[in-house]
């Protein structure tokens, strides 16, 4: 599911949005598709942590701590995020995406996206904390997914929404990836964007772990 969804999204969105008449080329859509894939980790984490509360509670009676369990989930989700980027990029390449950067440049997209995945896991944990069941977890996760989808990717923004986007973490990942794929990351705000992504992600994951351990019925 974690891989099928971004693959499907890539194909559908490239067909739908990469139309020069709409002012969008395939190259401007792809960074947003990578962001989409990672944002949806919020939903999968919220769902799995809501449905596995009893199991997590049981694991907590073994020498393995809940922090270790959550840690393993974080690592696996970061790996999933990296694989998602690869899937999106390979599919996009097959559909005509031609990034301006070198291979090494594109490689940079992987760790940057993996760092951002931390924020998705953190938001997923926050969602799972307040969810009573997996269905509620999926529903509530859209409170975090939708703003990031619409304000933080390639959707056309008005002056007002451009201001809102500054408060949406995915906006900074989108900008960072755009500069990587355009091959001019060294001359842009890339490091500023990376700093914002890192700070927000670390803060979100810490808050997520604390809230889930304290109030997530562990």
């Amino acid at each position: 599911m974690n891989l099928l969804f971004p693959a499907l999204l890539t194909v559908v969105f490239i067909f739908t949005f990469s139309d020069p008449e709409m002012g969008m080329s395939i190259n401007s859509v792809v960074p947003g598709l990578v962001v989409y894939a990672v944002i949806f980790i919020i939903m999968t984490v919220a769902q799995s942590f809501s449905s596995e509360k009893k199991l997590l509670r049981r694991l907590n009676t073994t020498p393995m701590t809940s922090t270790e369990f959550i840690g393993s989930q974080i690592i696996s989700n970061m790996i999933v995020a990296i694989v998602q980027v690869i899937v999106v990029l390979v599919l996009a390449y097959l559909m005509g995406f031609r990034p301006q950067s070198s291979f090494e440049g594109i490689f940079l997209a992987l760790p940057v996206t993996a760092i951002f995945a931390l924020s998705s896991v953190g938001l997923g944990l926050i969602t799972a904390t307040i969810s009573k069941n997996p269905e509620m977890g999926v529903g509530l996760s859209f409170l975090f997914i939708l703003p990031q989808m619409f304000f933080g990717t390639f959707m056309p923004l008005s002056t007002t929404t451009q201001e809102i986007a500054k408060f949406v973490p995915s906006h900074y990942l989108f900008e960072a990836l755009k500069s990587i794929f355009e091959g001019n990351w060294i001359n842009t705000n890339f490091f500023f964007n990376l700093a914002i992504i890192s700070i927000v992600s670390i803060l979100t994951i810490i808050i997520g772990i604390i809230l889930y351990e304290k109030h997530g019925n562990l």
Partner: protein
Amino acid sequence: MTSEVKNLLKELTRKELLEIANQKSIRIPNNWSNQLIIELLSLNVTSDYLQKNKSKTTKSKKTSDNTPIITIKNLVKKFEDVTAVDNLNLTIHEGELFSLLGPNGAGKTTTVNILNGIIKPTSGNAIIAGFNVTKNPDEVKKIIGVCPQDASVFPFLNARENIELFGNLHSLSKKEIEERTDKFLELLGLTEASKRKAGGYSGGMLQKLNLMMALINNPKIAFLDEPTVGMDARARRNTWEFIGSLKDEKKTIILTTHYIEEAERLSDRVGIIDYGRLVELGTPEELLQKHEAKNLEQVFLNITGRRIMEGL
């Protein structure tokens, strides 16, 4: 001949009588008096059989000594306005099979969850094998096995994988895990189904798997929270035998149940809990004698004015 058998039977406790009935596959209704059970058994057993059985029960009784392994002092747990555990004081001895008996919602699971470190008490404390459950939960987790009320297993793994995973979490060797897994699967009759994904198991099979996962680490103390809920009569009997065999391994077992027969058959001592308070404590025989009751259900009824299955 029959009178000799009867005399031998009269020397036995109710629990021992029920054990013999179980061995002979004789179903004894809960409301039967000891005298009635003796009459029935005298027609089905010989004095030789009883002599052999006596040596067995004596051996099993010796598995419990009087060294305290769990000490609970003034334990209180409140959930907002509800007091789930109300000033509980209790000592459980090493090698003892201790049952916490009470209706649903009486505070049995909350007590067990405090003891195994899942939830923190509002006040009071509990010491397990010398470790304070609040201050040294990691030490406690190394020596306990917990079988939760709801079967909590990984549905996408098969029985063997689920058990092995828990063995690995307790850092057991591969050989030890394999040996114990094979033994448990055979004892509980799950060998054939062990390669099927647990997600497709029936309620009874899940409960058995739940129990095996709790015991894979060969724990010194096992917390079994309603381990036979959802099982049919045959599976329940099979599980009782399995739990009984744990006593031979000198394990301390804390069993929470609302099944009277389960508590009567298995327990060395029973603590009756109601509204979070320990209202009675003793061996099943002591409680029956003290309350002049035929079974523990009647004991509970005498104390609380309600039946256990009625709940709170």
